[in-house]
């Protein structure tokens, strides 16, 4: 594989896996507490810090290389329903990855996201939000696959708890689903690259990508506080077994990228505390283009609204104390 081809492969893969390290918001709707998820976003709009999120996996390149991502996300509410977040990610690729197959390390492109909570229904444990994600092209290191083009991703998020099921199905009430669907498009349709081997210029078409995913989760805290208190040891009453899936499908201008869907399915568990949560999940690639073998992702997520309720944990423009509390 030439350096150019390898770089292209790394870049393409980086687009697909960069969200592995994304930190995600938490949310409350009536009885339901939607925890922050690790691989996909959820409708939560909140003040929080996910740090660190660490993922280790084998890339989908051929030959495959080990990749370690360490990321942080700081989300800040501007109003009760509107937040902005920033997320840097540091990447280390082991041999035979990197531009010269000697490995590489550096930061991915900085990501900024805006999110607005559109609707929340406490009785039916439903919440929906819209977001706009910007990956700032050229802000990261080319050697770890950071793209030179900026990409924009308008996204719709939703979360639904099953707490309104009838009494005959009360054991299913702790279940909840979250989902997201977004459309990523670049600010430049093509990227020109000079092959260091022969000096030729190659022009790559940057595709539009459908970014989609979700989670299925079973809340033990919900089971205890809203369905039945089984008298389990306290540790188990904080657990949320979860399966996430995060997918990307090129859907436009796919002449160079192809249309193969890439992504991962992540079974794991979250432990929910009053002020923070920790989570760990396996990262199972859905096909060879998505990775090789099973990876792992872990995260410590701090609820800044609970830790610092009267300072950095409150919206910059809070409408009122009670309104803030009702989020």
């Amino acid at each position, binding site marked *: 594989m030439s350096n150019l081809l390898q770089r292209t492969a790394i870049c393409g893969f980086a687009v697909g896996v960069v969200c592995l390290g994304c930190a995600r918001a938490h949310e*409350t709707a*009536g*009885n339901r*507490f939607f925890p922050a998820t690790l691989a996909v976003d959820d409708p939560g709009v909140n003040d929080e*810090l996910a*740090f*660190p999120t*660490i993922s280790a996996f084998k890339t989908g390149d051929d030959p495959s290389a080990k990749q*370690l991502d*360490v990321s*942080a996300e700081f989300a800040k509410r501007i109003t009760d329903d509107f937040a902005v977040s920033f997320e840097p990610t*540091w990447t*280390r690729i082991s041999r035979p990855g990197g531009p010269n197959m000697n490995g590489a*390390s550096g930061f991915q492109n900085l990501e900024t996201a805006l999110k607005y909570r559109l609707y929340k229904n*406490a009785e039916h444990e439903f919440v929906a939000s819209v977001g706009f994600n910007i990956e700032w092209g050229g802000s990261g290191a080319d050697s770890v696959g950071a793209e030179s083009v900026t990409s924009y991703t308008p996204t719709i998020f939703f979360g639904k708890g099953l707490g309104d099921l009838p*009494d005959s199905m*009360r054991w299913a009430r702790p279940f909840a689903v979250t989902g997201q669907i977004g459309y990523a498009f670049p600010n430049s349709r093509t990227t020109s690259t000079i092959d260091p081997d022969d000096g030729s210029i190659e022009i790559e078409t940057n595709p539009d990508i459908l970014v989609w995913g979700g989670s299925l989760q079973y809340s033990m*805290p919900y089971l*205890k*506080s*809203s*369905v*039945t*208190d089984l*008298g389990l040891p306290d540790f188990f009453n904080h657990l949320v077994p979860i399966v996430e899936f995060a997918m990307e499908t090129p859907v436009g201008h796919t002449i160079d990228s192809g249309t193969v869907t890439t992504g991962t399915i992540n079974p794991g568990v979250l432990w929910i505390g*009053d*002020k*923070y949560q920790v989570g760990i999940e396996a990262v199972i690639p859905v096909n060879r283009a998505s990775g090789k073998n099973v990876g792992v992702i872990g995260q*410590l997520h*701090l*609820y800044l*609204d*609970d*830790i*610092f*309720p*009267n300072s950095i944990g409150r919206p910059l423009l809070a409408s009122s*104390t*009670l309104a*803030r*509390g*009702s989020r």
Partner: protein
Amino acid sequence: MNTRFVLSLCAALASLTLVTAPAFAHARLDHANPRVGSTVQSAPRQVTLWFTEKVEPAFSRIEVRDDAGNRVDIGKAVVDKSNPVELHIAVKPLRAGTYKVFWRVLSVDTHKTEGRFSFRVER
């Protein structure tokens, strides 16, 4: 910047944040009497809820309703003075049946939370 340095920095900053965090959070239901989802042999005289944080008496309430949706609670919910995480309310003499408890509280750090659960009286 090597991997060990980045991971060490992550661990150090995360630990520092947790250690320096004051103890405030949403008030979530910890447990209740009668227990959530339980069946009791004799009718309780009151329903008591214990939360994970102290709650504000003025903005915290409990409603208890029978199968038909009629309220069976008496008076206002009271926060225990010696234990501000405990909120209780008296109820009328309860007949056999299923009762739903609706609660809504404001924690002392002004976060509002709500929830509901049911219990059954078998007598």
